[in-house]
């Protein structure tokens, strides 16, 4: 709210000369609305983070989520990471996200570049095979049968390969590559550069922004994926974080006894709510960490895709 209280009476700097200064009522209304919108997003995160950092006593006394901080305790996190269930899930999710993003980005960049030259060998059928993915989905069951037929059940590959190529991302990259002036590539070709060198040395450095955004999309997709894991991973030791989140946070199933056993049945053992909220925080954090770095590229990357997609 304080941010919004611009200097009274004077026109804010960003206002054009012809534009009337906002009325006090309008300014207050707009400010309230914006504050509410921002709070709607940030408040749940605030209280969840706070609860995850609260001591057992505080959470018990409040009887639920903590709204007012009373000291910072890392008990819940210590307990989570000293136990194998959640820390292993974090490891699995990290592995799948990093590996999957690398594979997806590699496959998509190569694929998009190979489709960026109309008139090349088999250009139209190859492009068509990707564009078809936009309009038709083969169905959950045939894909499931394919994955289990390939023997990928309970393998981390089942979390990567079926979603390795997103037609949307390929089209975004392709649109970007096609906008690079052909003369630049021609001159490189005359200098004796092959296609791989052109892609690596010229096209990719010129497409850093869009590649970053597409990478973020893939990474977020892998980190967040829940359904494929539920479908293909039966072995609980191979569960990614999304399944843990569902099992222990949403459905409130008891964590395996190992978790409770760590600090014994002592009085200071944080209640499950703090642990639950800590798991939620761990699931949110990676997105929040990468987010600011990629955010400035959004509009550029997304608009091309939104239109083409």
């Amino acid at each position, binding site marked *: 709210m304080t941010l919004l209280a611009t200097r009274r009476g004077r026109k804010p700097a960003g206002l054009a000369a012809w534009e009337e200064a906002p009325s006090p009522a309008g300014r207050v209304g707009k400010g309230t609305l914006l504050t509410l919108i921002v709070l*709607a997003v940030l408040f749940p995160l605030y*209280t969840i983070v706070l609860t995850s950092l609260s001591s057992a006593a505080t959470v018990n006394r409040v009887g639920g989520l903590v709204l007012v901080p009373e000291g910072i305790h890392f008990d819940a996190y210590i307990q989570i990471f000293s136990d194998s269930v959640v820390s292993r899930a974090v490891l699995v999710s990290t592995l799948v996200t990093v590996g999957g993003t690398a594979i997806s980005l590699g496959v998509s960049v190569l694929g998009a570049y190979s489709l960026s030259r109309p008139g090349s060998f088999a250009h139209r059928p190859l492009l068509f095979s990707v564009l078809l993915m936009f309009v038709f989905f083969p169905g959950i069951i045939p894909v499931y*049968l394919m994955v289990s037929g390939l023997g990928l059940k309970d393998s981390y590959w089942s979390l990567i390969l079926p979603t390795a190529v997103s037609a949307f991302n390929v089209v975004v990259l392709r649109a970007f590559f096609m906008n690079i002036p052909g003369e630049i590539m021609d001159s490189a070709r005359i200098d004796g550069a092959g296609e791989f060198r052109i892609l690596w040395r010229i096209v990719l450095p010129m497409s850093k922004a869009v590649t970053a955004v597409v990478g973020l999309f893939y990474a977020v997709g892998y980190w967040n994926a829940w359904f494929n894991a539920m479908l293909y991973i039966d072995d609980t030791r191979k569960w990614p974080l999304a399944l843990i989140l569902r099992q222990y946070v949403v459905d409130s199933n008891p964590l395996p006894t190992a978790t409770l056993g760590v600090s014994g049945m002592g009085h200071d053992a944080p209640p499950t709510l703090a642990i639950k909220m800590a798991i939620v925080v761990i699931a949110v954090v990676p997105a929040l960490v990468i987010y600011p770095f990629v955010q400035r590229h959004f509009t550029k990357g997304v608009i091309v895709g939104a239109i083409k997609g």
Partner: protein
Amino acid sequence: MISATAATPRRRRAARPGKELTWRAKLRRDWPLVLMNLPMLLVVLAFWWIPALGNVIAFQDYNPYTDGILGSPVIGFTNFALLFEDPQFLRAMVNTLAITAFQLVFYFPVPIMLALLLNSVVSARLRAFVQGVVYMPYFFSWVLVVAIFQQMFGGAGLLSQLLRERGHEGVDWMTNSDTFILLLTSQTIWKDAGWGAIIFLAALSTISPSLYEAAAVDGAKRWRRMWHITLPGLRPVIILLLILRLGDALNVGFEQFMLQRSAVGSEASEVFDTFVYWSGLRTGDLGYGAAAGLFKGLVGLLLILAANRVAHAFGERGVYSKS
């Protein structure tokens, strides 16, 4: 962006130098490109084309253990006929269409209004801050969104907690099947509306400021300018996205429903995709589930093609155009 707002004439296929080459010569020239395409082609083949063809099991009394895909008896359209006698399938269809209609009214305008609000914020720094905040939930998983809503509005959530402290009854909106459509729409708004505003903001930024200036000089006040300049400027994008949403009417999201199905019951939460999963993989009648999936896929395909037609008729580019 311009391509969305202004109807760009389809690029004329210029004389392509490759046209007169034989395919052998082209292959000799383009083999590195083909090589680059190969990994993607393999993935698409394995997880798109082959499964798409695997839909033949929809026409079989498919038994994966004894007969396999080649030996299972072909039963024609029996599975499809059974679908239309299955009350649960009809419920899934009704629910899906009802949710699409509901969200068209109560979700679709939200990103537009948000974009208008953001666009009217004078301070660039404040606007960037609010944008940064409202885009964020788009990157959260559905599991996370459901978990967060549960902590706020569930039986043991914050709202109930505050109500009980004041001596009222607690509420549990997470398990109430009557209000499920409201719940899932608010979840969708919370997660996606901010992100959805991006495209409208981009469209707004292409409207020439001189139009506003001229209108202001002619005495048009804020609201008149919005009515006569801003909204007409947004119209092409709004129409395009509306058409695309209609073409996508059978898709209302999947994980959101799977995750909350046990809480609100199947009556309120069954949609096409969840029906396919439960009827096919859970009860083990794979051919039947595949039939439901294929039905949805094909109707969805028709809807998208129709929507694209309409988009082209409006002078827009639609989901795809020949390139």
